């Protein structure tokens, strides 16, 4: 309840600010955030509105067979320390060898996010002592990352109404390639730390988003869109629950026209839903703190999903100086395009940006537009289709196999199929009704062989997954509509015969 109350404070306060002295750019955001708010009782200070600012740093694990700088396999949930090369364990004398696939994944992602790709990027060492960082430094791209200055468009609905969607853009500051760390397990009772280096050295893309967002919902929508893009590209599986997508949120609040407030970094967010919660909580917390005369510390906080709040993290010994240094064992990473590609270069040795660009798959936004155009469905329906893995394919397969208009099919997909799947926590893949069966059923409906009420009845039977075809079910349950003129007349006659009195009354008027 406390959290909700807090949420109200900034929403309300913000609403007032929208008409106030906010700058044009802020003003734009104001509209967005504004639209979410409802009427909320006045807060303590009341007068001055707050502008929340949210930026994200997202680590996406690159989907590749081997690690960024070594030949060890990448695999989730393998036995501890079973995927560790000499380099990953930092044995003296080992050297990094850059994995081409990881570079291509980063270039793909950069292009999909409208970045300029740096033809020459550099690797750096970032030093800190930690048990799961065997070399004592992480190889990253601090000075010149592989991609910079991009943007990501995402949409979110206003007031939770699917029919009111707005599209927003967040700027992408940069994408850098870097190594993942291992995992530490602290056993406090035995005061032991167990280290698993399977993850150590796996390739990461760190996507740094500018602080262009202003609430949890925006952050969540942006991350969801990024996730879809990564999955479409195949550059990352981006499953948050498996740690393939890790989001840190930088949150601050300030009054319009004033400089940004002190920001906190919220970590330990492991789902998109929690991201929205964590960001909103943190905004509320900061406003509450400031309105009570407190200050915001530049600190790292962890989101506690059980309590629904953020708590200060054990500080890693105050301010760290990472002592960045160029990585001397890796030459600059040189990428080529069609123009700069040297003629005598071995194709296997180079990464060609243009070549990758030409082969980019349709991105989610394009896919949605195509769905809307091809099938005449509503834009918000295209979002739902893409949001569920495999749902678009399911829909398109049904459309292919039925005479029913796509506009009508979509209702069955989104209401009936998706409703059922959600209710039973099933994925599209796990659906007991295949696209073929559903198409069959819809064809019966389309040919007027059954009524739409009957079709729903058949679907209920189909969910049971007993291997019957819709037609079989229709026959068994005698659900077919009667097509024969004589038969219909007979039925009518029989009804009228049985109800003679009523018929006479009607005839008499």
């Amino acid at each position: 309840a406390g959290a909700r109350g807090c949420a109200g404070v900034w929403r309300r306060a913000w609403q007032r600010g929208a008409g106030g002295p906010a700058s044009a750019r802020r003003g734009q955001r104001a509209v967005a955030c504004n639209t979410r708010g409802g009427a909320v009782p006045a807060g303590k200070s009341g007068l001055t509105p707050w502008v929340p600012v949210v930026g994200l740093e997202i680590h996406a694990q690159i989907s590749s067979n081997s690690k960024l700088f070594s030949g060890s396999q990448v695999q989730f949930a393998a036995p501890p320390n079973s995927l560790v090369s000499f380099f990953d364990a930092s044995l003296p004398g080992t050297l990094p060898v850059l994995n081409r696939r990881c570079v291509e994944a980063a270039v793909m992602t950069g292009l999909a996010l409208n970045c300029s790709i740096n033809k020459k990027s550099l690797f750096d060492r970032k030093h800190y002592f930690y048990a799961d960082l065997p070399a004592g430094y992480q190889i990253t791209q601090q000075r010149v990352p592989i991609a910079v200055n991009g943007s990501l468009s995402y949409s979110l609905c206003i007031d939770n109404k699917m029919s009111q969607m707005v599209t927003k853009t967040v700027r992408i500051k940069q994408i850098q390639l870097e190594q993942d760390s291992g995992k530490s397990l602290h056993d406090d009772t035995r005061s032991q730390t167990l280290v698993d280096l399977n993850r150590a050295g796996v390739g990461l893309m760190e996507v740094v988003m500018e602080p262009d967002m202003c609430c949890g919902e925006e952050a969540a929508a942006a991350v969801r869109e990024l996730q879809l893009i990564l999955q479409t590209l195949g550059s990352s599986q981006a499953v948050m629950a498996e740690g393939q997508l890790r989001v840190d949120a930088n949150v601050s609040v300030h009054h319009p026209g004033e400089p940004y407030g002190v920001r906190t970094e919220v970590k330990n967010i492991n789902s998109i839903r929690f991201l929205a919660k964590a960001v909103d909580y943190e905004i509320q917390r900061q406003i509450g703190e400031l309105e009570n005369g407190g200050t915001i510390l530049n600190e790292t906080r962890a989101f506690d999903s059980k309590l629904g709040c953020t708590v200060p993290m054990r500080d890693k010994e105050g301010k760290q100086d990472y002592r960045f240094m160029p990585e001397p064992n890796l030459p600059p990473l040189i990428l080529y395009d069609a123009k700069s590609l040297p003629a005598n270069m071995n194709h296997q040795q180079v990464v060609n940006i243009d070549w990758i660009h030409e082969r980019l798959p349709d991105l989610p936004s394009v896919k949605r537009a195509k769905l809307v155009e091809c099938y005449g469905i509503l834009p918000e329906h295209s979002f739902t289709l893409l949001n569920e893995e495999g749902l678009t394919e399911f829909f398109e397969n049904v459309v292919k196999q039925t005479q029913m208009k796509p506009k009508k099919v979509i209702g069955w997909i989104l209401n009936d199929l998706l409703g059922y799947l959600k209710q039973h926590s099933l994925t599209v893949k796990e659906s007991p009704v295949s696209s073929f069966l559903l198409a069959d059923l819809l064809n019966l409906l389309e040919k007027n062989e059954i009524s739409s009420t009957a079709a729903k009845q058949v679907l209920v039977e189909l969910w049971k997954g007993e291997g019957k075809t819709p037609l079989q079910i229709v026959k068994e349950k005698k659900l077919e509509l009667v097509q024969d003129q004589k038969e219909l007349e007979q039925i009518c006659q029989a009804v009228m015969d049985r109800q003679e009195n009523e018929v006479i009354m009607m005839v008499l008027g």
Partner: protein
Amino acid sequence: AALTGGLRFQVSAALREGRVTPTELCQRCLSLIKSTRFLNAYITVAEEAARKQAEESEKRYRRGQPLSVLDGIPVAVKDNFNTAGIETTCASNMLKGYISPYNATVVQKLLDQGAVLLGKTNLDEFAMGSGSTDGVFGPVRNPWSYSRQYKEKSIPKSHSDGAESNWVITGGSSGGSAAAVSSFTCFAALGSDTGGSTRNPAAHCGVVGLKPTYGLISRHGLIPLVNSMDVPGILTRCVDDAAIMLGSLAGHDPKDSTTVQDNFKPFELPNLTDVSKLSIGIPKEYHAPGLSSEILALWSKAADLFKNAGAKVIEVSLPHTCYSIVCYHVLCTAEVASNMARFDGLEYGHRSDMKKSTESMYAATRREGFNDVVRGRILSGNYFLLKQNYENYFIKAQKVRRLIANDFVKVFRSGIDILLTPTTLSDAVPYMEFIKEDNRTRSAQDDILTQAANMAGLPAINVPTALSERGLPVGLQFIGRSFQEKQLLTVAKWFEKQVKFPVIQLEEVKRHDHTVLQHQKSASFS
């Protein structure tokens, strides 16, 4: 003769013709290692493995199918190269007892070509030093300390003193490798060269020491000192042998991204008869403070030698040379600080018993594992890398490094083929004198003539030239253009032929054998 001769013309021929077998050769070297134990050149002698390798080699010779010219040739490797199954210590408590699971690329290449690996040679801890005096296994003694040449010319203060207090250092940090080659316990050895660590001990021990162009030989498996300057070095008794070793080691390694992509073609060195087309540069800045008059004289004599043979000898300037040492200090310590971060006691190496916290365990492990020299360099390196200092030190040093490299580019562009310089300021000093100065001062003094070549990544070679008044070896250095090893070695070979450097006469070895061996044991294990 086979034992003292070079690879190309003597030993290999003897092996091929069956005048000596690999096992005999191996056995003789192993016995010599034993009788020269007091030199402390080796940290680990891999006796059994070496014998096995020799036996395998012998079988190949019997079948008439030796793998290469190196088949059956006993070699030694500096103890900062990883060797699977043989301890790799870096002469540090941190890695005492550490057995690597893999071979450095250069070690693998030697083994693949049939070479017999006798053991691992002594060095300064983590190759940080210029005397081979600062390792945890004790100092290396220069074999020339026990030569007739030195004995005849140096007058001991008293009889009891003798060679026991007069023994001279090998230079470093690859002193063990230089001593091993110089004392005939192996035919070739690997060193490493970051600021002169191969050429300096080569000069003091009277052997050929080649530092190839950066990127020509793989560093994979070489425990790094300064990644951007380290190169595996080659120590041999003659220039031809260095060329053979280079041919068997050079080339692209997929495990080292800083090696050149181009294939390397091994070469035989021609016998130069005409040097008249050569331009030899004499960089005036190498007339450095502290350069002994003896070496200066030798240097100008060498220049005259070229001039008289018809070569153009031109004084040139490398104006930024004087900044090289201080620049090196910043870059070296910064990389050292970074490279040494991995030694935290968790994955391998020494781990302190301290269990209060992870941090206290790290601290204690590193205090116990590293000597003062290593810890000092880590400390200053971390200082230079701090955010507030990075611009003022590291970035500046990188700029100076570029200036130093450009000096060379300009000189070579002006038509100079090879630079001729001294390798060291003087001949080797007695150990007792050497340790009066600390490691840092010594390194700064001793690297001054060799270090700029590392900054620029250029190939350079020490050629033993003459004996000093005290009967100790003095060498001169040739610096060549990037990847022009063939030209460099060809000139070095011509020079070698002219100067006829004397063979070491190690008759003292046997006499000293027993008494000194006892002494050494107590010294290094105390």
